[in-house]
């Protein structure tokens, strides 16, 4: 189905990218990166003369979670599977909604307070589709993508976040 497929690894071997041009000529891109997410580049890639709406979602690191102060987060992922899962989510979003472009970038490594750990940009002719697809993508990403975060607290120490797992 993909017309072209590219995967690259930076000099440090820490950036991985999987992109394809769908048959419609519009762009699908998923990326896992250890560098700050380039939001202007993402929005530029998401835009299209056929799009009347672009919705961007940023997941950012909160300083306070249930009364505990976070100093920073560490994200880890199973990279090959995470790229695969994110690509499948994009493909499914395109089946469910009429989208122009769709981009997902997730950071790994250390993410400071206020910085985005994930960015999803979706464009569509009419805004309802972009809003719905954006929300669906982040909802699904949080359930199925093999990515984990560790909260590192200001008071020292830290803990991997594994919802439902009994870590005694």
């Amino acid at each position, binding site marked *: 189905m993909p017309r072209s497929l590219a995967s690259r690894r930076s000099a440090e071997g820490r950036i991985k990218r999987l992109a394809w041009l769908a048959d419609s000529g519009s762009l699908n891109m998923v990326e896992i990166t250890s560098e700050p997410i380039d939001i202007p580049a993402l929005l530029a890639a998401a835009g299209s003369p056929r799009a009347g709406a672009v919705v961007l979602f940023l997941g950012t690191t909160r300083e306070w979670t249930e009364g505990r102060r976070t100093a920073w987060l560490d994200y880890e992922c199973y990279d090959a599977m995470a790229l695969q899962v994110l690509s499948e989510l994009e493909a499914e979003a395109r089946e469910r909604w009429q989208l122009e472009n769709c981009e997902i970038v997730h950071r790994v490594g250390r993410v400071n307070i206020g910085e985005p750990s994930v960015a999803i940009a979706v464009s569509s002719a009419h805004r309802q589709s972009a809003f719905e697809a954006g929300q669906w993508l982040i909802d699904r990403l949080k359930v199925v993508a093999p990515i984990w975060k560790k909260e590192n607290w200001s008071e020292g120490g830290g803990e*991997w976040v*594994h919802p439902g797992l009994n870590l005694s």
Partner: protein
Amino acid sequence: MKVRVRLFAVARELSSCDSLEIELPEGSTIGDLRAAVAKRVPAIQEILPGVMFAIGTSYASNKTPLEPDAEVACIPPVSGG
């Protein structure tokens, strides 16, 4: 047969190990692997009932059969986003 199991997040930290090689009888399933890992790495025994496994890049159930040299990943509950 041998399968390789990658460990992530709390599983990696508790076991102090990124990856294991596990020897299993031919015809074993993910369920058999789960039991074998629990036996081999007591540090993660307690969390293993709550983790998923993937073969290659696809989630697998306990009934999924394993091929020799399968690349398996142990996937604790995810928290990306």
